[in-house]
């Protein structure tokens, strides 16, 4: 299947679009620039690059009128409502000019020359796809091809190894760029808030995932997998299933994935044979998806033990199942895997979809040497960013960042959020796609509304960022640098029959980037 090559991220050749009438127009340096801090948000970027809502402006320039951008074929519903100066129409081919004159019926819209700079804390792009998706899920990582096509667009730049809050502050970015989109996800964990939570042998599942995925921050973590045969995972979402599967999957199968070498060795020597998944609520509220559950249920040489009495549902549970196809299918899978049957009544704690776990006061003791808490990620704020501590997200309306509550929900102009930082750490890649579209729709609307005046005045954009990084001796990794890392990782991997061997040390990554 060919969806690569010269085509844009959406299967539309970028250059074709621009060349349609581009040669007859003068493009001025319009520095509408965006910054995105997490590569997972490439949807955000690609939508900005091709958003039909952002129409170019006709501006006076050296005594004549020029357009600020090229022209792109798009949707009939779009229109150009401004009236056009004669000079402009004269400068166009007659066909293009008549298209412009037709206004509402026009199939043509003006497309701004926007630039998008992505700033990433790590030297490598792709965030959660590289460091969150399990090594035995290579098909999920194919989306990297699409991300790369966006990154390789000439109007898109990648700045790896630039740490928001340290290398550059949020207020500086907001000075340099017209629009700043924060999409840096959730890099911390929710806590249980119970005594003993920080004892040795207890880790967050996020750290464990980062460890086996070769994340530079967790490459030195060495979970003890040798002095115990039992691990307990708290949680019943996909991350919980991921860590359970990695702990139990035959290492011969893991050996040909892009799992980090240190993790593979540790797992090869692991004495863990039993993993218990503990859910606070019932199976109806399990956050995992059917695919991941089906996968672990079908794992080679694995005995599954689901107690039927754990599957008893209340009326409210039934209601929840009726309303959700995914929960229904997950529940059915669990039922198929269940054994034994002493039923017990089960209590209801809330309305459908809003049930919470309430302790019964009864405790069970389980012997184990490793506990992984997989109860959710949590975002961390940066200086100058409004943050809702209770929900762990940035307060926003459709991606527009709101000032703190005491400021009466005033919108922070030019500041947006997308992804997990915006709505909390749930959902799959496609969820972020829709999420990003919503944010981009807000940006597009604002560029014609509240930001219209501002976006016509120049900002330093990329040059400003480069100057700043230079003055602070920040060694950034451009996308080219990532390509070097990529080549190197693949070369090392090829020797070991792995798709790649991830370089886990930050210093080595920078060396490999050859910047």
């Amino acid at each position, binding site marked *: *299947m060919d969806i690569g090559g010269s085509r844009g991220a959406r299967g539309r050749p970028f250059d074709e679009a621009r060349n349609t009438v581009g040669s007859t127009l003068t493009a001025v340096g319009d520095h509408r620039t965006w910054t995105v801090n997490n590569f997972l948000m490439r949807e955000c970027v690609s*939508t900005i690059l091709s958003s*039909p*809502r952002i129409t170019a402006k006709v501006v006076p320039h050296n005594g004549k009128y020029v357009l600020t951008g090229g022209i792109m074929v798009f949707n009939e519903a779009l229109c150009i409502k401004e009236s056009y100066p004669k000079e402009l129409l004269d400068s166009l081919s007659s066909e293009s000019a008549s298209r412009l004159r037709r206004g509402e019926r026009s199939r043509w819209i003006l497309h701004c020359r926007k630039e998008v700079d992505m700033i990433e804390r790590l030297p490598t792009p792709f965030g959660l796809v590289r460091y969150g998706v399990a090594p035995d899920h290579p*098909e999920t990582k194919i989306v990297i091809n*699409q991300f790369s096509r966006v990154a390789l667009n000439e109007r898109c730049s990648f700045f790896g190894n630039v740490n928001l809050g340290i290398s550059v502050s949020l207020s500086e970015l907001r000075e340099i760029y017209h629009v700043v989109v924060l999409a840096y996800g959730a890099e911390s964990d929710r806590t249980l808030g119970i005594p003993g939570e920080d004892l040795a042998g207890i880790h967050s599942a996020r750290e464990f995932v980062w460890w086996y995925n070769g994340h530079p921050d967790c490459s030195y973590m060495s979970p003890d997998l040798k002095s115990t045969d039992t691990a307990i995972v708290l949680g019943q979402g996909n991350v919980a299933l991921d860590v359970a599967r990695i702990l139990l999957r035959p290492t011969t199968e893991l050996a040909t994935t892009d799992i980090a070498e240190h993790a593979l060795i540790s797992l090869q020597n692991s004495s863990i044979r039993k993993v218990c998944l503990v859910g606070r609520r019932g199976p109806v509220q399990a956050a995992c998806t059917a695919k991941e559950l089906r996968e672990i249920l079908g794992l080679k040489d694995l005995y599954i033990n689901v107690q039927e009495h754990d599957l008893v549902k209340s009326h409210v549970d039934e209601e929840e199942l009726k309303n959700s196809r995914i929960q229904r299918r997950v529940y059915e899978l669990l039922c198929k895997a269940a054994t034994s049957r002493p039923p017990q009544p089960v209590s209801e704690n809330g309305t459908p979809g809003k049930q919470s776990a309430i302790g019964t006061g009864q405790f069970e003791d389980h012997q184990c040497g490793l506990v992984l808490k997989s109860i959710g990620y949590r975002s961390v704020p940066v200086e100058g960013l409004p943050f809702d501590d209770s929900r762990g997200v940035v307060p926003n309306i459709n991606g527009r960042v709101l000032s703190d509550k005491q400021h009466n929900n005033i919108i922070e102009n030019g500041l947006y959020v997308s992804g997990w930082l915006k709505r909390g750490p749930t959902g*799959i890649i496609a969820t972020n796609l829709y*999420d990003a579209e919503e944010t981009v729709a807000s940006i597009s609307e604002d560029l014609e509304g509240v930001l219209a005046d501002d976006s016509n005045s120049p900002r330093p954009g990329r040059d400003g960022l480069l100057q700043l990084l230079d003055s602070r001796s920040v060694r950034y990794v451009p996308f080219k640098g990532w390509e070097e890392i990529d080549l190197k990782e693949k070369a090392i991997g090829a020797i070991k029959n792995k798709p790649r061997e991830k370089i886990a040390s930050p210093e080595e990554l920078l060396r490999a980037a050859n910047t």
Partner: protein
Amino acid sequence: MFLSKLARAGALLLIKESNIGRYSISRTRLLQGSSRCPFQPGTHFFSTSDDRAHEEGIDQKDKISVTFVDKDGEEKHVKVPIGMSMLEAAHENDIELEGACEGSLACSTCHVIVMDMEHYNKLEDPTDEENDMLDLAFGLTETSRLGCQVIAKPELDGLRLALPAATRNFAVDGFVPKPH
């Protein structure tokens, strides 16, 4: 079989030459023209099964008509060779259908809705794996499928596929997706 294939190609050649003489005869033109060939109803004699047609190479591939309907109701008619998935067909024709995992059944971004029950029933039932992905699709309907799993076959000629409302273009008319 080989002879009959030759004969058919010859017939096509003749038709092309007489009908649209100004075109140079090329393999692509033959393919594009094949659906308009008056012999079309008779092609069943020559193509035994989908797989066979696929194996027999590009020259003998038939195409079916598929209509993609975007959420504004705008229709795009395309010809899809037997054996090609609707995801590939969409991409070949610049139809805005995502395909994040490139057809490896690891995402739900090529979600399409089969617009009539009759065609839907002609499809093989979705596998568990496809259903697992459909679980996660936005705007799921009774006749939802993944575009990468719907493969063109003769019975599907005239297939109409709707792109779900929450596609990437929703901003055009101010559509705002439901909170996730």
